[in-house]
């Protein structure tokens, strides 16, 4: 028999579960649906993930790892163009794991790991946004009073965290479907960065408007 690495099934289960959670919402996806979608026996699913919580935890761990790596790049942001790219990448990651944000309160109330780790996610996001502001201040693209940094960073984190919920409420049937990803993410990045407008140096402010316009044209 050819030598094949095991755990392919475990990987496949995670991929399909992520897709189902994202499309239908975690509370609406049963293990029955997951094993049916994968065409594997329930025993096979339980062998790898005996509880639905284990699936949620494994997916969350992946999200947390990728997020950590990405947030560490925040101190390389020098100008609006970098910031735009950074926020866009961040939103892409959030989009990839949007089930977490879609039913956040529900997940927090029943999963201990998420309950504790999501607080860390928020703190880590706030830390990254502050270092982004620092880095942009040093580069002279942003001018912000140190007393305003905390509140601005917090507002940016709130928009970053709840933007997809806002998109969802606006159009529950379509907002989180893949074909709406690009516009939703672009709007999110725009609104997060818009909070920086009062502090942006003039040419940077114009540059941001230019970026926004360019994306709007793409949309049309």
């Amino acid at each position, binding site marked *: 028999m050819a030598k094949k690495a095991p755990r392919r099934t475990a990987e496949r289960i995670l991929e399909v579960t992520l897709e189902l959670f994202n499309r239908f919402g975690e509370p609406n996806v049963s293990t*029955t649906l997951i094993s049916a979608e994968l065409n594997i026996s*329930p025993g096979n699913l339980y062998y790898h993930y005996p509880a639905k919580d284990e699936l949620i935890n494994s997916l969350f761990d992946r999200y947390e790892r990728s997020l950590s790596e990405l947030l560490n790049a925040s101190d390389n942001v020098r100008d609006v163009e970098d910031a735009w790219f950074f926020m866009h990448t961040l939103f892409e990651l959030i989009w990839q794991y949007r089930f977490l944000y879609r039913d956040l309160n529900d997940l927090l109330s029943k999963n201990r790991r998420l309950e504790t780790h999501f607080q860390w996610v928020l703190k880590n996001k706030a830390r990254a946004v502050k270092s982004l502001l620092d880095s942009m201040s040093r580069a002279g693209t942003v001018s912000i009073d140190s007393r305003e940094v905390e509140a601005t960073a917090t507002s940016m984190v709130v928009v970053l965290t709840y933007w997809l919920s806002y998109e969802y409420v606006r159009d529950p049937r379509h907002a989180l479907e893949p074909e709406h990803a690009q516009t939703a993410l672009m709007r999110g990045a725009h609104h997060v960065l818009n909070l920086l407008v009062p502090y942006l140096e003039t040419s940077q402010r114009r540059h941001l408007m230019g970026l926004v316009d360019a994306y709007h044209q793409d949309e049309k």
Partner: protein
Amino acid sequence: MAPWKPFPHAGEYAFNVASVRQHWARLHAGDAEPLPGNDDVLMAWALFHSGEFQRAFETGLRAGVEGVTVANKAACIYANYLESREKDRLVLFLEAAERARELAIQQPANPNAWFWQAYALGRYSQGISVARALAQGLGKRVKEALERTIELQPQHADAHIALGTFHAEVIDKVGSLIGGMTYGARKETGLKMFADALALNPESAMAKLEYARGLVMLEGQPDHPEATRLYQQAAATMPMDAKERLDRDLARAELQD
């Protein structure tokens, strides 16, 4: 509860009272259950080995105290391999654990009264998430019941497997430090339990599957070469009854693209 889902290879492992009696030693190499004297109980076992889990369960329960173990095994194996509804599955485990607990009170020297209590509670714990189960104090009950099983029947291969899985799960979920201090879980003990299980029952696909999963958890290496080897061996076993077939199918699925 809805009727149980059928065994997917119905009819391929047809046993009756006579053939179960004839192959008893081989069929029970894993759980070391003694040959029952009662034909009704043997009938329940014949149904179990044929994959008629619900009828095995009902026939076992009707046979009274002597049929409790076959009923528990049928319920647990069905729940573990075939029941897709999480809630029903957990209920089956809890009910089996309770029946086994009562049996252990009546027959404290019956190894399988302890074993099925541990198995049912262990799978239930995995099903609600191990961390939560440990917080509820289920870890201690599972471990003690398994140790009691082995004390009463040192040849009980399946109890060695389950105890290996216990050590692996606890270390995987709470880490080796807390796992060791709070629940007495040790990597070496876990690996030894799996190796002992295989020595006791070398043909067991389930021992190989759980060993492979335990290795991955304990060594933290998803493509552990020894795990691959175990899956290949498990996939190559010749199942003698329905349950062994389910194990082999699982191993084969693992090696598929």
